[in-house]
């Protein structure tokens, strides 16, 4: 299966995507990640106001068969979580790039973006 990898996003090696709009970073998981997990049946996300740290777990998503940690692409404060996922975690499978977003972070420093990977590199990663 060929997975779409939007050019305007940053990625982590753990298969999160990050969309940066000034100092607000929207975080989700990639199509490749949801496909590999299978049907997602549960999402555990941080509360608003909680601090997250780059490369550290901030929550989990679970398919029937496995638990998968979610890693923060940047450090900062959670300003919004996707409440819709609580009732319908399957959105993560149906629309991982849009409606399946996980959290919005107010990032501490733009400098951390330098350690994220770009679409080209991410494509190589999942082609392995």
């Amino acid at each position, binding site marked *: 299966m060929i997975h779409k990898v939007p050019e305007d996003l940053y990625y982590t090696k753990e298969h999160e995507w990050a969309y940066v709009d000034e100092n607000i970073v929207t975080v989700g998981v990639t199509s490749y990640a949801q496909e590999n997990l*299978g*049907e997602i*049946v*549960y999402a*555990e996300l941080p509360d608003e106001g909680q601090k997250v740290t780059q490369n550290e777990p901030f929550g989990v998503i*679970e398919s*029937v*068969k496995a*638990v998968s940690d979610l890693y923060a692409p940047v450090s900062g404060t959670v300003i919004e979580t996707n409440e819709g996922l609580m009732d319908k975690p399957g959105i993560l499978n149906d629309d991982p790039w849009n409606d399946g977003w996980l959290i919005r972070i107010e990032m501490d420093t733009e400098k951390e973006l330098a350690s994220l990977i770009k679409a080209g590199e991410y494509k190589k990663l999942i082609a392995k």
Partner: protein
Amino acid sequence: MSDAKKTPLHKWHNENGGKMVNYAGWDMPVQYQKGLVSEHEFTRKKASLFDVSHMGEFRFVGSEALKALYFLSPSNVEKLEEGESCYSFFPNEQGGVVDDLLIYCFKKQKDYLICVNASNAEKIGEHIKKHSTDFDVQIVNECEMWGQVAIQGPEAIKMTTELISGVDKLERFHFGSFDYKDSSVIVARTGYTGEDGFEIFVSPDQTEELWKDLLAKGAEPCGLAARDTLRLEAALNLYGNELSEDCNPFERRMAWTVDFKKLNFMAKDRLVELKEKASRKLVGLKVLERAIPRAGYEVLDGDEVVGLVTSGTMSPSLSEPIAMVWIDKKSAESDKKLKVQIRKKQVEAQITPLPFLKNV
């Protein structure tokens, strides 16, 4: 991955959307394109096919074949008549479980087949060899001699009977040799899903043909992931989760397979002690909040940790998080409210009868 073992259906899985993973040294399909939940539901509604060719088989032949099995197993193998099978286990010298298995009687006293877990096949081979030297029995490793296909679900009997005539006459836990095209297969009315159905032993070169013929009758392939959720709903033990070399079988719902009236068998004295010492048991648990219990998570009664989850999942059939848990007997009363530690949270759960779901 290149050194992983391949079943006779390996090529078929690869060509038909099987997502392959290493399982017990075998390259096996964890799921196909439709995915775990669809495969699980199809099994409960119609009938699914499972490639179980990775399972291990050993034959016991000779004048003391039964004597050897009578010693190795704590079950009433002496009561098996030709064409009957039973579920049992082989204890180690400490009374732990070397493997759980099915024993098939082909000819009373003289000819039996056992079917063991893929992960334990090598170990079981050594165990049998070590503990059967006193008996006039030849042990034949038949692992390479058989492909194995399971068909499970409410329509499994009908579909299989259309292809292999007469199999519908088999009772549960009975088996026989049946004509299939120009050769024959061994069909057993057993399974690992909580559904009626068959497990079919077939020669490796005919396995794919049988598989395709059953697909043509309307069955669909099902991978290992759904096999696990199906067996968990039916509360069937999985070696490595519920059973291990150092577990107490009397704390793992295996008591019914042990008959202490038997004169002598492997680790009998030790098993008597383990029965008396058993302080925990396996029970079913439903989690009442939105969170999924997983193997290894702690179970609490009030503030006290009283045991562990051995298997847990989001039940596709019940749409509820379920688990088998190994807990102190004093906390194991029916309907009792307990908690499961799921990461940082303690979630409400309640003891519920096992199996969670069973249609056979």
